């Protein structure tokens, strides 16, 4: 390698030397023929289908913002169109809101339990004679409350809503007409009328005594069961005595269960008020 030249050799000079690396002339003739055949095949052959996809992706990437905005608009429109628009009512100054806001008025119109009912509720236990009377008082209080709820509340609603909305006006008029047409509507309750309720309560009071009556064993069966253990049961006198004793016992049991049942009926009535 010669080192004694006066010219300074730089890296740019060395790189530029690569410019001199050129193919021979015959290379270009081959190059031209090959590119001609490739060009013809490119004209004849269709481009594969995925080139269209890649082109679409490129276009989408170039215009992401408009496509995104258009998609959001389309989704919003579809949501509104197919799911249904939210029911927003524009309220005019003179018009009152619909009947829904009157629910608190209905709730507030329900009267508080009356004093006898509270007294009955706070009393822990009562004698048997007073139990039925107290129960009837409680039933009456409950019935009065429910009847006043059903008779007074719609009237209150109608009076409150009358100046507010034509729709509530219509409801109030309809309810008033219905009350005039059917006067016994006021005495009806959601639990039924008084006359419907009384047999139900009576049946509830009576029914628990029947299983006890059914549980009373027959005399023959009793003697058959007790004969191996108590030989006295085999005689007729002792058998009669035993049957008397059992009868008295069963009647006292029946009274006891009946009193317990009244207590349970009282509790059921207290539960009804709530």
């Amino acid at each position: 390698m010669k080192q004694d030249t006066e010219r300074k050799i730089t890296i740019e000079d060395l790189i530029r030397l690569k410019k001199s690396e050129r193919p021979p002339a015959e290379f270009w003739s081959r190059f031209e023929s090959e590119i001609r055949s490739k060009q013809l095949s490119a004209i004849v052959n269709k481009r594969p289908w995925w080139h269209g996809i890649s082109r679409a992706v490129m276009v989408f990437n170039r215009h992401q913002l408009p496509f995104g905005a258009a998609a959001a608009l389309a989704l919003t429109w579809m949501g509104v169109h197919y799911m249904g628009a939210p029911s927003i009512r524009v309220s005019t100054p003179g018009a009152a809101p619909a009947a829904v806001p009157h629910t608190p008025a209905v709730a507030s119109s329900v009267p508080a339990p009356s004093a006898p009912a509270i007294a009955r509720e706070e009393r822990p236990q009562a004698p048997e004679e007073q139990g039925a009377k107290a129960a009837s008082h409680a039933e009456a209080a409950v019935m009065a409350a429910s009847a006043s709820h059903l008779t007074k509340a719609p009237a209150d609603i109608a009076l409150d809503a009358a100046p507010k909305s034509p729709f509530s006006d219509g409801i109030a008029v309809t309810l008033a007409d219905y009350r005039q047409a059917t006067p016994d509507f006021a005495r009806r309750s959601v639990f039924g009328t008084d006359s419907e309720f009384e047999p139900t309560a009576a049946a509830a009071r009576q029914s628990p005594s029947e299983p006890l009556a059914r549980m009373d064993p027959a005399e023959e069966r009793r003697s058959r069961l007790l004969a191996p253990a108590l030989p006295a049961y085999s005689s007729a006198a002792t058998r009669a005595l035993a049957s008397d004793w059992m009868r008295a016992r069963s009647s006292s049991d029946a009274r006891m269960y009946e009193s317990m049942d009244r207590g349970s009926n009282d509790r059921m009535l207290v539960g009804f008020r709530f």
Partner: protein
Amino acid sequence: MNASKTLEKTLVASPERKLEADADLEIVRKVQGGDVAAFDRLILKYRERVLGIIYNMTSNREDAADLAQDAFIKAFQSINRFQGQASFFTWLYRIAVNSTVTHLRKNRMRSFFSLESVREDDPVSRELIDALTDKTGAGRDSFVRELQEKLNDAMQKLSINHRTVVTLFEIDGLSHQEIAEVMNCSVGTVRSRLHYAKQLLQAELQPYLLK
């Protein structure tokens, strides 16, 4: 014309480039109009430059020939999408560089050198070779061959992006702005890559940098 305004922005190079770009656009419009034979003029005009870029990036003449042909075919197939927003040669270079980069990344583990011979009919290269050696005949040829291999070896030690920047700037003579357009990066990135690549090449070719 819209294309001319864009060219003023992208081409920082000489006014000859602008005239060249306008002439290319005219030919492209013909091809887009259905004159397929007009594309041959573009091939004839740019084939050496495109091949030179690809060859200096791959250091393999067979791969360079195939990739150059593919670049022209891709440009031909996509000629209808060319709207004149950049100059045709920038667009063609971008296709060629992208194809080459994809090829190099795909065949990262396979690299064979297949070098062209250095032609000394160029006075600049002859003067350079004379400056580097006083040998004649076989000794000179072997020295040139050794230098050529060292140059290609040093180029291949660069990363693909650094190699591309060096090729486009030092060998093909594109401006920083044009290289940024071709490589789809900023001018600062081009300058940074060029500076770093030259440092690496200087370290590799230190024995040949003589006074």
